[in-house]
């Protein structure tokens, strides 16, 4: 981008200052200072923090992009600001400006630089997506980017209007409204919904996965520290969308095991009633639920929306 102004042939008198050089001289320190500030001061505090590896990767992504964006923004603003000051219309000057229709070198340089920036960002973004196992984003039911190192802790996120509940299939499949995670261990969230589309957003973990009805949407993360996790719904899901929150925690492995074992025992009477752990829970697939619907006279699909003439196979 620095090539842009200097490449334009200076028209007019020989005394004409070298505007390009001036602009670069103003721009360079600003851009440099901005980048240093972003990289060393601002970046480490950027959301969503570094509670998990996916959050940390997002933080570094944001920092890198901010470092790249700052000089671009600075260049445009410095150039425009310089132009507005130096090349503003003076009273009594009714001449038109120099008839410059374009400049191939400048244009080519601009296109080359923006393309290079954009392409490197795409490559970087892809690497950052693949590297921490999908960067905490929902990966659908057949994730292709998985974390290595043994089976992760599986947590099923069940969204319903308007509360998240969590099932822990590796601990007897109990279901709870509490989200508790052990530190340092890979976690696999299986996000699904019982009604409409929600989005499971564990802010500090940098995890966001849409909860779609009858879809298992997988997201991975690995908590790096202990701390609080705020879960919110990030997809408008109706009346109480704003209230659909969970206060979760990342705790030590021992504390997690203790909590899980205790909860498993405590909730045993409830767990007995739950359907066996599956990845989705629609009434066609969960036999007992289908029967219960039939018994209540709700034999039609979609909770009787479709009427009894529609096939449901409980």
């Amino acid at each position, binding site marked *: 981008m620095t090539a842009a102004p200097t490449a334009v042939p200076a028209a007019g008198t020989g005394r004409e200052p070298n505007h390009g050089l001036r602009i670069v001289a103003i721009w360079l320190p600003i851009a440099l200072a901005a980048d240093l500030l972003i990289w060393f001061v601002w970046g480490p505090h950027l959301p969503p923090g570094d509670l998990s590896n996916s959050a940390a990767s997002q933080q570094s992504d944001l920092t890198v992009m901010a470092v790249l964006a700052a000089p671009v923004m600075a260049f445009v603003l410095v150039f425009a600001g310089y132009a507005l000051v130096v090349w503003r219309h003076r009273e009594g000057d009714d001449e038109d400006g120099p008839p410059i229709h374009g400049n191939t070198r400048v244009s080519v340089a601009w296109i080359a630089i923006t393309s290079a920036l954009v392409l490197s960002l795409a490559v970087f973004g892809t690497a950052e997506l693949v590297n921490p196992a999908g960067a905490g984003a929902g990966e659908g039911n057949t994730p292709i980017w998985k974390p290595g190192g043994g089976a992760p802790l599986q947590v099923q996120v069940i969204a319903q209007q308007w509360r998240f509940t969590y099932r822990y299939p590796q601990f007897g499949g109990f279901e709870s409204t509490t989200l508790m995670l052990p530190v340092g261990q890979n976690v696999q969230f299986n996000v699904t919904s019982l009604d409409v589309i929600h989005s499971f957003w564990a802010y500090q973990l940098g995890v966001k996965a849409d909860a779609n009805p*009858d879809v298992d949407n997988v997201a991975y993360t690995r908590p790096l520290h202990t701390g609080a996790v705020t879960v919110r719904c990030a997809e408008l899901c109706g009346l109480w969308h704003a209230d659909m929150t969970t206060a979760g925690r990342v705790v030590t492995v021992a504390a997690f095991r203790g909590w899980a074992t205790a909860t498993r025992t405590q909730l045993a009477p409830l767990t007995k009633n739950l359907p066996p752990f599956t990845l989705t829970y629609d009434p066609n697939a969960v036999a007992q639920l289908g029967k219960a619907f039939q018994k209540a006279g709700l034999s039609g699909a979609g909770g009787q929306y479709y009427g009894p003439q529609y096939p449901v196979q409980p």
Partner: protein
Amino acid sequence: MSGTLSPPPSSPAPPPEPPEGVTRAAEEASFYHEAALNAAWTGVRLAIGGLSFGFGCFVFAYFYLRSLNSHGMWHPAGFKGPQPWAGALIMALVVVSALLQYLGLTRIKGGHKRPWQLAALAALALGLAAVGLQVWELLNLRFQPGSAGFASVFTGATPVFLIIVLGALIWLETLIMRARAVPAISFVEQPPTYAEAFAVQRFQAGLSAFTVLWNYLAVIAIVFWVLFYVTA
């Protein structure tokens, strides 16, 4: 100063001699007449582009739901689809109608107005028959609209096709009515006045545009037939 009201060119070359007998009004009339003919040509192709995206949205739904096959409910076992004979007949009616109309077009291009009129009337009747049959089929569906993914796409897409076909047939009807006002001789030799020549040409441009659209809809009819009756 270039920004002010433009004066006539500063040192104009002597303007070329206007062709014999051409007046300002005639010049502009023919300019916009030609623009209108081009607009018919461009417009119908653009409309086909837009319609393709409209139909494409149902074709996308068809293949998307088919590939997802949620709960095996795209086309569940024992699902009884729409009447195959009706589908084939609707498709055939539209295609034959388009063919007839196209044949009529070749005749009117050859200067024969009457055969086109007959062909167009027949095409109109066949098209209306197709619409009627489609309506009958929708009123006598052998399945509930939501009983399968396929059923949804079928119940959703066919009325859209039906409405577009009906719109095209209304256009055909207006063409038939317009043709009545054009003397048959005008298709053989040049009419004596600009106005009549323009009217004939506009009719012809409209007819050409309609033919393109109607042939396109025949192709869509075949596509929908294949989707809904052959490969379902």
